[in-house]
């Protein structure tokens, strides 16, 4: 939709990025996915890299990401997004490649691919949407589900004795030397969204400098999966999710990437 450029002398200061299509999101009300989509596409727009960016989204609620992001995209098999992204990046080392994966995808079935993509230091961005649940398939327990959390496959609450503790895969992968930048963000407040945008911008810049893998977890809102209203979901994030998944940078670059392209391939 075309935006009016000014109203009563007021200037247009925020609009949906042109890198998002006009397709209406199919997500549930209050879902975090589409906010992350938008922020990603804002960064792509601002960096002017729409023609150089390839995204990979595996199955999960965001499987139709390609309906919304106006960039070349590949849909990947469940868990294999980072392998698919590796395939793309190895063929097109000078393009920007990101995968966009849910917690079921990245931290359950795709664990091996996640660890090895990062261990190889593949020069790409992994966006990890952690909603502590399998959204698409109807709310089953994920490796990230909180202790005691009731899901359709943990109807009596997640029990550490039966299935272990929530998996903090982000902290785990931060230990790998191939991980250059690892951070945990959210989209539950305007400021959180601003921070996420900064993080994504940095990640693309590091990719330009061939620094290795950037890994951005977004602790995302999933009102449907959590069986609550979008506004209640904010409370759940603050009271339950963040204590287990504290926001902030987990691994920041040790060198000074700003000083020039002294990437690892040099």
């Amino acid at each position, binding site marked *: 939709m075309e935006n009016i450029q000014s109203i009563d002398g007021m200037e247009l200061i925020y609009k949906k990025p042109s890198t998002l299509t006009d397709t209406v999101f199919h997500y549930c009300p209050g879902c975090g996915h589409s906010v992350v989509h938008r922020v990603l596409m804002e960064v792509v727009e601002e960096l002017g890299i*729409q*023609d*150089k*960016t*390839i995204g*990979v989204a595996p*199955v999960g609620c965001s*499987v*139709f990401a*390609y309906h919304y*992001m*106006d*960039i*070349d*995209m*590949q*849909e*990947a*098999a469940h868990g*294999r997004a980072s*392998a*698919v*992204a*590796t*395939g*793309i990046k*190895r*063929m*097109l080392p000078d*393009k920007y490649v990101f995968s966009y994966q849910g917690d079921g995808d990245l931290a359950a079935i795709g664990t*091996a*691919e996640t*660890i*090895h993509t990062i261990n190889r230091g593949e020069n790409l961005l992994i966006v990890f949407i952690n909603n502590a649940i399998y959204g698409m398939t109807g709310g089953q327990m994920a490796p990230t589900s909180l202790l005691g959390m009731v899901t359709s496959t943990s109807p009596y609450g997640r029990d550490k004795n039966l299935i272990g503790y929530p998996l903090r895969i982000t902290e785990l992968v931060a230990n790998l030397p191939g991980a250059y930048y690892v951070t945990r963000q959210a989209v539950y407040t305007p400021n959180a969204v601003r921070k996420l945008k900064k993080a994504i911008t940095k990640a693309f810049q590091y990719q330009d400098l061939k620094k290795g893998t950037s890994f951005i977890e977004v602790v995302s809102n999933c009102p449907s999966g959590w069986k609550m209203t979008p506004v209640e979901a904010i409370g759940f994030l603050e009271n339950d999710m963040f204590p287990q998944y504290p926001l902030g940078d987990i691994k920041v670059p040790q060198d000074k990437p700003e000083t020039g392209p002294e990437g690892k391939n040099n």
Partner: protein
Amino acid sequence: MNNTENSTNDDVRLMKGNEALAEAAIRAGMDGYFGYPITPQSEVLEYFANECPKRGGVVLQAESELAAINMIYGAAGTGARVMTSSSSPGISLMQEGLSYITSAQLPCLVVNVVRGGPGLGTIQPSQGDYFQATKGGGHGDYHLIVLAPASVQEMADFVFEGFRLAEKYRNPSMILADGALGQMMEKVVLPPAGSLAKRKYDWTTVGKPATRERNIITSLFIQPEKMEQINLNLQAKYEEMKKEVKFEEINTKDADIILVAFGLSARICQKSVDLAREKGIRLGLLRPITLYPYPYDRLRELAAQVEFFLVVEMNAGQMVEDVRLAVEGRKPVYFKGRMGGMIPSPEDIFGEVEAIIEKQSISQD
């Protein structure tokens, strides 16, 4: 891709099938290989690991076959000429990926250097993966283009053919070899580098310029009507592919009896044909080269001519079903198989022919 003078001056070689295949891939302008070690085909990855750094092309040892086939998916989606290889258990792990790749219509080459199964089995040669290769081991209605080499020479040649067909039809090709073909050395005349032109594609995901709509690689069509259309398109493609059917006939012209065998089995059958001819028995051999598409028509024709068919496989009887489907009861179709890595001998096969003749009391005069 750069070919060192070394390699171009050096087209006739004594090579292992696995090495010939890899060398041919480099000459075919392969852009990328993603694979995982497994006997009896690890030489493929090893060859690339040695050569690609010098001569171009990406080689990546993946963390698993599962990762490898999905790297292929991603890489093929960029329009690159890519391949992977493995042996039976590893190929089984690729079935989901192959179903995806076929559905998303991505060209690529997959090599299965078959070993004896099922399970971990043995590393000795086998043809036990025929069904998996030709009927589709993954879910849904799809087919790979399947080529069955019978010599080290064909291990090399079919790389070119495999890429060509894959790219022509936007469908993965598979080379279905076996452990013996992979491990044995024979003389091979290597195809010249650069002889396989690259296609320009408009569907690849390489970054969307302002001048075109975005490209999407996907196999997801949630509306069954749409998914049915995708399937109809695939089926139309398979129909179209039928014209690519290839087979070799040896002494079939006057044959009263025809052996049907592919790959290594066919080599052995050839010797059985010689043995029979020496004894005055008019035995012939039909060797399907493409296992998909399959030479049903030619077999149907031959059914009019012969007394019976004997299908020889290094498995419990898989291709024999396709022969029966072709022959449709017009003539008896017999089967002789060895399994688990065992290889039939020319004498055994000829013995089987004689036994059937005896049973049938056919007079060969």
